[in-house]
């Protein structure tokens, strides 16, 4: 449950995820003097500038120097402050990867990273600004918590939750223009606990980020048009992963497809696959995302369509998986 006065202070319909983040951070900072902010010449673009405008003495612009910025954040955390750091995902997870790993994660410091422009959300900018590797990288850093909110509302919930969790947290959002799924924060966001968007017994779609809204819509259509019972999980926390929810899906639906705005290697799909493999139970599985290539140039909506991450893509993938008759395989029934 969301606590305090918080979740009515922004208007999710007229604000982007990044703007909501900026707003929520300002509120939190009012109550918690340990909070400081950092950006690397992207204060405006990432919206942490809102915090900077309100608390100029608690905000540090590192200039275009991401490695230095994450080192500075580590120092500030060592000094007892709680740095919120924002730049684009690619300059966080790749450019400054070692500072994040060695300065922040290795020392288990209380640094909260809100990385924007994740996945292909800045599609027009090309591969230098896409980031389809961050979940793989961040997930492999010990001590790190990795969250991919479904939309702006969930971003607000995640930002609040990360402050209560000691240690480093990586929250990956888009460019901020994505449509929202949630109406308010009152649905019980909890780090490490998947949210069931719809119950189902035929197949489970495990999603994060923009794919949550698309999958919810697909599930509704599949129920109406195909008579399918589709479970949709919003797996906002990639690490620690809600293994219980995955195992339940393995046993109760026997088919799992993951959808994420990330390389199919190393992210949500891989995390889910690890749990399935460990379980020793039979389960049809597919991971949908960017198929281990550098993503095309284009507006994000076009790219989501191309890579099968929009509602139509999800519908097609579910129909394909449901059409396979692996249930006829001899030992399918014995596996459980």
């Amino acid at each position: 449950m969301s606590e305090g006065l918080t979740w009515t202070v922004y208007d999710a319909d007229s604000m982007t995820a990044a703007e909501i983040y900026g707003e929520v951070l300002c509120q939190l900072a009012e109550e918690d003097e340990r909070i400081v902010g950092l950006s690397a010449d992207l204060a405006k673009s990432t919206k942490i500038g809102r915090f900077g405008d309100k608390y100029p003495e608690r905000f540090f612009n590192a200039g275009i120097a991401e490695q230095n910025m994450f080192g500075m954040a580590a120092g500030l955390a060592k000094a007892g402050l709680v740095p919120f750091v924002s730049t684009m995902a690619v300059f966080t997870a790749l450019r400054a990867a070692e500072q994040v790993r060695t300065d922040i994660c290795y020392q288990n410091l209380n640094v909260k990273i809100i990385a924007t422009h994740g996945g292909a959300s800045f599609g027009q900018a090309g591969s230098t600004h896409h980031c389809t590797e961050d979940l793989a990288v961040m997930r492999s850093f010990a001590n790190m918590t990795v969250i991919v909110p479904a939309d702006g509302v969930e971003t607000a919930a995640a930002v609040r939750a990360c402050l209560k969790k000691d240690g480093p947290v990586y929250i990956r959002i888009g460019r901020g223009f994505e449509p929202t799924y949630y109406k308010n924060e009152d649905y019980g966001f909890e780090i490490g606990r998947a949210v069931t968007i719809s119950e189902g017994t035929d197949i489970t779609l495990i999603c994060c980020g923009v794919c949550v809204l698309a999958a919810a819509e697909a599930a509704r259509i599949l129920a109406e048009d195909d008579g399918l019972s589709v479970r949709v999980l919003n797996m906002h926390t990639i690490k620690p992963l809600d293994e219980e929810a995955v195992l339940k899906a393995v046993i109760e639906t026997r088919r799992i497809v993951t959808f994420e705005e990330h390389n199919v290697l190393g992210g949500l799909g891989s995390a889910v696959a690890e749990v399935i493999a460990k379980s020793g139970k039979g389960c049809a599985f597919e991971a949908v995302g960017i198929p281990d290539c550098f993503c095309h140039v284009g507006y994000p909506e076009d790219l989501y369509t191309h890579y099968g991450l929009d509602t139509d893509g999800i519908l097609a993938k579910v129909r394909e998986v449901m059409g396979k008759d692996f249930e006829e395989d001899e030992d399918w029934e014995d596996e459980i």
Partner: protein
Amino acid sequence: MALSQKRIDELCDIARGIREDIVDITAWAGGAHIGGALSVTDILVLLYWEVARVDPENPQNPDRDRVILSKGHAGVGYAPVLARKGYFDFGLLKDFNKFMSPFGMHLDSLKVKGVDVSTGSLGHGLPMAVGLALGARLRKKTWTTWCILGDGELNEGSIWEAAMAAAHYKLSNIVTFVDRNRLMIDGPTEEVMALEPLADKWKAYGFNVLSANGHDFAELHAAVEAARKHTTGPSVILADTVKGKGVGFMENEVKWHYGGLSSDLVEKAKESIRAEKAN
């Protein structure tokens, strides 16, 4: 030899045309880094029409000079230069930013003819220039590596790591420009992360430091000539420029780092560019 007035006038005409192209492409693209593209235009025009050894007929000519637009976000200003030089058809730029276009905001060396190095993440150009220059020396090639840096980009430590290496290896076959327009995204360079005394910094790193008005072809050209005469190490030309140059309402306006243009604004911008000629 100094440039003739006639040649300077020709270069000015070409630059005005490129600036109009930038306005058009920005409108087609739905948005682009127009401010920093307009500030770097004259440097690119001087390179491509006057001083760099380029071969549009044979973009992979092994003896060509290498050009690295390290401030890769100015791709919207680089693409029309390459098109007007004949590397590809200008009409292709109507698809700038669009789905599966070879042209994203930051040009991709595998997709766009004439682009030697993919850039867009700041602070990568000068290190690659050092590699190209070392490679030229090793392979006994005479090409020059030209590298264009943003001033905000100089915040990146990798630039100074590369500067140290360029001087260490005495790479006189590198000529670097700094597009010193004094603005980055969050504000003026001196307010966000102060760079001055900038010439002293480059000197301390072992560079031959030259300066020029980055919109004056005679001065830019003279600086390049001086850089070429310096044979004991790398040179840097600090080019004083104006972000948004040529479009009155964009000049020195930080908000025009990145933007889109409605058809009204396209006309207004072009009028402004043409009016400069009258003055």
